[in-house]
C-alpha cells in the first residue's frame, strides 16, 4: 500500500518538474514543436531503460493488440485539449477542471474494472474522499490571488 502511494508521489513530483521544463521550451519553440521534442525524448529514455532492464526482451512484443500501437495518440490528444482549454478558459479554471476530470475518470475506471484493472467497488467513502480532494483543489486554485514576489522577479541568470 505504502509503496504504491510512494510511487505515485514520485510520478507526481516528476510530472511537475517536467511541466516546468516543458513550459520553458514551449515559450520559445511553440506547443507542437515542444510536444514532438518531449515525446521524442520520452521514447529515447524509455527505450534505453527497456534495453537496460529487459535486454532483448524489449523486442519480443508477443501479445500486441492493434490499439497498443495507437495509444500514444492519447498523449497528443491531451496536449491539444489542454492548450485549447487554457486558451478558452485561462489556466486556473481550465487546470481545475482538468484535475477534477482526472479524478472522476479514475473513480469510474476503478469502479468498472475496465481495461484489465482489478475492480474496486464504489463505496460512499470513496465518493466522499474524492469530493474532499476536489474541494481541496478548488480551494487551492481559487482561494485568493497569489502575489508575485516583485523585488526578485527580475532574475537575469535564467
Amino acid at each position, binding site marked *: 500500500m505504502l509503496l504504491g502511494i510512494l510511487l*505515485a508521489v514520485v*510520478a507526481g513530483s516528476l510530472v*511537475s518538474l517536467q511541466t516546468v521544463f516543458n513550459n520553458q521550451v514551449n515559450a520559445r519553440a511553440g506547443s507542437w514543436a515542444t*510536444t514532438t521534442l518531449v515525446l521524442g525524448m*520520452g521514447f529515447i529514455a524509455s527505450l534505453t531503460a527497456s534495453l537496460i*532492464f529487459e535486454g532483448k526482451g524489449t523486442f519480443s512484443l508477443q501479445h500486441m493488440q492493434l490499439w497498443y500501437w495507437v495509444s500514444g495518440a492519447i498523449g497528443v490528444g491531451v496536449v491539444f485539449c489542454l492548450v*485549447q482549454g487554457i486558451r478558452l478558459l485561462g489556466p486556473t479554471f481550465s487546470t481545475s477542471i482538468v484535475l477534477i476530470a482526472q479524478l472522476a475518470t479514475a473513480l469510474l475506471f476503478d469502479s468498472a474494472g475496465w481495461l484489465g484493472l482489478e475492480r474496486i467497488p464504489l463505496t460512499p467513502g470513496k465518493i466522499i474522499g474524492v469530493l474532499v480532494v476536489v474541494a481541496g483543489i478548488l*480551494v487551492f486554485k481559487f482561494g485568493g490571488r497569489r*502575489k508575485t514576489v516583485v523585488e526578485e522577479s527580475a532574475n537575469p541568470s535564467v
Partner: protein
Amino acid sequence: MKGILFALLGGACITLQGVANNRISQDIGTWQAATITQLTGFILAALVLLIVRDGSWQGFKQVKPLYLFGGALASIIIYSEVMAIQYVGVTLTVSALLIAQLCVTFLIDLRGWFGVVRQKMTMPQFIGILMMIGGVIILKL
C-alpha cells in the same frame, strides 16, 4: 462551454493514458509499453507539427539545454504510475500523484526555481493541500 469540454476531455485522457499503459504493460512489460506509446505519440506529434508548422527549431537553441530533456522524465513517470496503479488502484494513484504534483509546483513557485517567477504562499493554498491529503486518507479508510 467549449473550453470546459476540452478541459474535461483532456483530464479524462490523462487518466486514460495511465490506465492504457497499465493494460499494455500486462502483455508486453512496462518499459516496452512506455517505449511504444512514446514512439507512436512522437510520430503523430511530428505529423501535426509538419501540418501546423507553429514551431521553430531555432527556438530550441534559446532554451537552457537542461529543459530540453524534460521529456525523458516520462519514462520514470510512466513506470511509477503503472506500478502504483497495480498496487493501489487508479483513484488512489491519481489522488496521490496530483497532491505531489501540486506540492512540487508550489515549491518551485515559492523558491523561483528553474526560471519560474517567484510567488508567495497564501493560506488558501496551504489549506487546499491539507484538504486534498485529508481526502486521500478518507479514500484509504
